[in-house]
């Protein structure tokens, strides 16, 4: 088994008096898909935010490979190869699907002033390449969506917006993908399709590891290699879906059975 790609130790996040994430330990290996579950307000999204540099951690340490990435700026985290989706969509609604994807592909684009304004050969080449790759990526999720590459996101139905968000996070070929309830508001069928597409994409991106926050237990059961359960900011269980779903603490706090 390969060494952990991402290693989190003792991560703590506070909002005033509230400890939203309490001394959280977590490890993620290459190609692994970990389901992160827990009751509402248990700190799942906060974990993503602390990881991606949006909230500064009060204490703790995060390493990616051999690099310490604790408390770095969001853009540095992205450069290091971690991308995410947001629980509440954060797309630029007035921009086209393509533009939104290209925001996600920032790392692979050329941002020099000279080349962008004057010698535009390179720009042209990059645009053409990226139109192709965007279209291919979208097609993996939804063929009709791929034909709307140049429509504004505002015109898309919610479900397609979610797809665009996932694609935006995938297009730069990250090492780690953080998904925050990607299937919220979808029917079972749609959720299943999205997950299938996601798994298919994973096949094409060797090494991609995913952390998935999800309240739909069927999904977690089907796709996750391992589960981590949070409650009141603390890890209360970890292991395979079967182990975790059998844990009585998890059942009481989260699943609400027995």
């Amino acid at each position: 088994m390969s060494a952990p790609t991402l290693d989190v130790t003792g991560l703590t996040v506070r909002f005033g008096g509230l400890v939203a994430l309490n001394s959280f330990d977590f490890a993620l290996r290459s190609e692994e898909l970990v389901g992160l579950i827990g009751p509402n307000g248990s700190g799942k999204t906060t974990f993503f935010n602390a990881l991606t540099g949006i909230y500064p951690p009060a204490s703790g340490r995060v390493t990616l490979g051999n690099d310490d990435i604790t408390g770095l700026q969001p853009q540095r985290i992205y450069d290091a190869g971690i991308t995410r989706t947001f629980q509440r969509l954060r797309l630029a609604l007035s921009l086209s699907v393509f533009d939104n994807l290209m925001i996600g592909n920032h790392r692979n684009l050329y941002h020099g002033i000279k080349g962008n304004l004057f010698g535009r050969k390179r720009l042209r080449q990059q645009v053409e390449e990226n139109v192709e790759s965007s279209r291919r990526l979208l097609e993996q999720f939804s063929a009709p969506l791929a034909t709307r590459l140049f429509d504004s996101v505002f015109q898309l139905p919610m479900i397609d917006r979610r797809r665009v968000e996932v694609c935006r996070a995938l297009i730069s070929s990250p090492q780690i993908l953080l998904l925050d309830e990607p299937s919220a508001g979808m029917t079972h069928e749609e959720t299943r399709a999205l997950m299938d597409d996601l798994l298919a994409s994973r096949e094409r991106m060797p090494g991609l590891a995913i952390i998935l926050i999800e309240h739909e237990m069927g999904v977690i059961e089907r796709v996750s290699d391992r589960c981590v359960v949070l409650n009141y900011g603390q890890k209360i269980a970890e292991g395979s879906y079967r182990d975790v779903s059998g844990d009585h603490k998890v059942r009481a706090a989260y699943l609400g059975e027995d």
Partner: protein
Amino acid sequence: MDFGLVAQYLLNGIVLGVIYSMVAAGFTLFFGVLNVIKFSHGDVVMAGAFTALAAFAGLELLDAGVGMFAALIITVAGIVAMATLGAVLARMLILPLRNAPPLNTLLITLMFGLALRESVRLFYPNGSNPKPFPQLLPDLSMTFGNLALRLDSVLLIIVGLGAIVGVHLLIQRTRIGLAVRAVAQDPETARIMGINFERVVLLTFALGSGLAALAGITNGLYYSEVNFGMGLLLGVIGFSAAVVGGLGSIYGAIIGGFLFAGLQTIGAVWFAVPAYKDVFAFGCIIVLMAWKPTGLLAERSSERV
């Protein structure tokens, strides 16, 4: 520097601060409800003062133009007229544009202010010249050394602060205020909760414009003079005060108003050329904004990811 002098500066500063605060409170109110900057606010202040002046002319015809009673009547007249004007403005220009980018509202109110100013200049009898404002408050004053403590100043401070605090309580403590704040956050959901969106907007504009009129009349009573251009700088300063204090908070508006008055007074005393006081005050504002980017009484941030 002797005590009387310091007290005099303080007193002047306080009256000035009250006037600024009243204007700032209006800005905060509009911002709070529709997320718009209403740049015509300063001119509404001016128009309020002129309406009161016109009402006074009317009273004089009836031979009733003296004393506190007349002051009360013209104040009410000014407030009612401006409140109506505010509601009409909201109805005709602000509401139809509420789906347009917010800066468009800013521009449209700016132009409305210009139109208002030019109208007073052109259509108020001899409107391009300064007008004396009647001295209606009791002309009593006591002198302590260098301090001339005037009763009218004290009255104006009390009325002004009372009005601001009253508006604050209205917004924070009443059902109407709750509706106003809900509309500010999300108009559509507010409607789903059974709130009459239009009425709330009209009400807020009426309230803010009424407050502006009061500021204008206070200004007139205090300086005994009004002119059609008085709203220009007052508007900018009121906006600055509202922002420095922290938009959306009425107490912020008060703090901002007094801060601005204080900075100007200090600037005027400190510099050999008092005209530098505005350079000083606005310079301080820039520094303050770098230090406290969302105002002194920062809004509690409700943003999360």
